[in-house]
């Protein structure tokens, strides 16, 4: 099969063994990413957003296993040996995290951490690598990059560190950039800067981007397509307009309604989805959203709704559309 998808994920499932039983963190997830496109992944905390991408980057915790298929272009990469994976990881596919300090080594200068990749993967000389590192820091808007490159991570502010992370992720011109809540820890004004930067970079580099976030506002401004997760499964996918203006799944609908908006004077009380997020360790039989859903039917409690497509790459996992 030849497609122009850069990344194709099929039937990806990820499980964790814990002393208290198995956790099904990711269940049967399917999606793909095309060049230059931004995919937004939204969902409640613990819904499996991060684990999908840790699985495909081969970065799962030791107690986790994944099954299914992940193809980078036409090459199967799920469960590859890490030696083979390293040819792709950080080179063609990079990931940035919420807390930059976890992925920066506090004891090494930024220059060292940035040139290492280039020297190793691109065979560049130290001097060339340093030049490229400085150019990249400059590109992500770090003032005085030539001097700053010789500083340690703790000498940067939170926003600056996130810029450094983005610069590092883009060093080898990756085709896929996975951003896991890159702005959640930042202030709104700095978040706005970083989002602007990501928008710009995408125009320049045509990188396929995955934006994991719980902020629907970020998705609205940045993404082309959206994938909504609930309880370890994808419950709805569609273009950003489909999702925001014509959502089909009750969870998506509830999420959008419960989002406070800065551009609107509010009514008396906020719309709230009742109940608590599900516990992945003992999901109910049937739909994971049943206890909080306003449309719940008898069928929802016994049978699990499958993700069903209805034209134009849209899909939703809910019985409501079936009309009983």
């Amino acid at each position, binding site marked *: 099969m030849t497609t122009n998808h850069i990344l194709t994920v099929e039937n990806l499932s990820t499980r964790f063994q*814990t*002393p208290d039983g198995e956790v099904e963190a990711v269940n049967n997830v399917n999606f793909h990413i095309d060049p230059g496109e931004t995919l937004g992944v939204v969902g409640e905390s613990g819904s499996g957003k991060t684990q999908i991408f840790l699985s495909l980057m081969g970065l799962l915790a030791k107690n986790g296993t994944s099954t299914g298929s992940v193809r980078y272009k036409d090459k199967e990469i799920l469960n590859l040996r890490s030696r083979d994976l390293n040819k792709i990881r950080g080179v063609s596919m990079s990931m940035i995290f919420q807390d930059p300090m976890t992925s920066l080594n506090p004891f090494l200068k930024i220059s060292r951490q940035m040139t290492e990749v280039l020297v190793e993967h691109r065979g560049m000389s130290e001097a060339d690598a340093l030049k490229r590192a400085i150019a990249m820091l400059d590109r992500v808007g770090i003032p005085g990059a030539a001097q700053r490159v010789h500083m340690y991570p703790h000498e940067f502010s939170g926003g600056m560190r996130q810029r450094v992370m983005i610069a590092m992720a883009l060093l080898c011109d990756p085709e896929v950039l996975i951003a896991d809540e890159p702005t959640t820890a930042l202030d709104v004004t700095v978040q706005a800067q970083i989002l602007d930067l990501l928008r710009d970079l995408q125009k320049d580099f045509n990188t396929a981007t995955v934006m994991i976030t719980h902020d629907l506002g970020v998705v609205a401004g940045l993404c082309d397509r959206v994938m909504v997760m609930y309880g370890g499964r994808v419950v709805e996918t569609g273009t950003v307009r489909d999702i925001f203006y014509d959502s089909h799944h009750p969870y998506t609908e509830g999420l959008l309604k419960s989002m406070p908006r800065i551009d609107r004077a509010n009514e008396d009380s906020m719309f709230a989805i009742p109940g608590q997020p599900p516990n992945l360790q003992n999901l109910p039989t049937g739909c994971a959203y*049943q*206890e909080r859903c306003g449309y*719940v039917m*008898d069928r*929802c*409690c016994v049978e699990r709704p499958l993700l069903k497509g209805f034209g134009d790459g849209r899909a939703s996992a809910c019985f409501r559309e079936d009309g009983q």
Partner: protein
Amino acid sequence: MMNKSEKTALLQSAGATKEIEGRSLWRDARIRLFRNKAAVGSMIILGIITLLAIIAPLLSPYAYDQIDWGYIQEGPNWENGHIFGTDGNGRDLFVRVLYGARVSLAVGLLATAVSLIIGVTYGAIAGYFGGKIDSIMMRFVDVLYSLPFMFFVIMLMVVFGRNIFLIFVALGAVEWLTMARIVRGQTLSLRRREFIEAAHATGVSNFKIIFRHVIPNVLGPVIVYMTLTIPQVILTESFLSFLGLGVQEPLTSWGVLISEGAKVIEASTWMLIYPAVFLALTLFCFNFIGDGLRDALDPKDR
């Protein structure tokens, strides 16, 4: 909607009759501890040793200070009832090892308890109040640390004579220093936690905050350290006994027995081996339990 209302109805009917029991962190830890084979095995062995020590007089026809003139320094012999043999005074070694266990375990437990009470209170107060109070209290600990305590204990023994009570106090007084430091460190980091601040905001008194909020939350590392202190105290007591400063004859401890055995190691190996095996076994057991507790109390480390 049916499903939901059904569930709430169910929950409400349950609520009318019964409060749901919670699973405390202690219970979780206990469950994890009991999954650890080495720790459970150690607890069983220690239990047996303790039990033997308690019922020692019932197990043997001989008393610990009774001299059996017929068998002076004889090897183990099942027929005459001296199953571990006898010592140079013709006293039954089996009974003496178990009586030694009484003393050694008692010293270990009591001295540790002394260090626990002083150390935890002292450390929690220093860490909780912080600032100048903390500096002064911890400087005092530093000063005590730098004194050559072994020497101090030996001096005490020489001046006041061999007194088992003194041993408890002396050992406890040495061990609380480390305990205080551990507790203080834990308290310092706890002090900034929101639940302590919430208690403050409500107007709970400092004294109650320390005993209700601080101490229960530092108990984890304290218990681990405690299980490692007991064998240390037993060893220190043995060392004192080895130097001839331990308990008074005819009472005995493992340290005393080992030191006597070591003197006659060539002629009568059993006099060294039996107490030594008991001592080593006990030390190992405490260490395994300590390790098990550490894992059980720190769930991140599963």
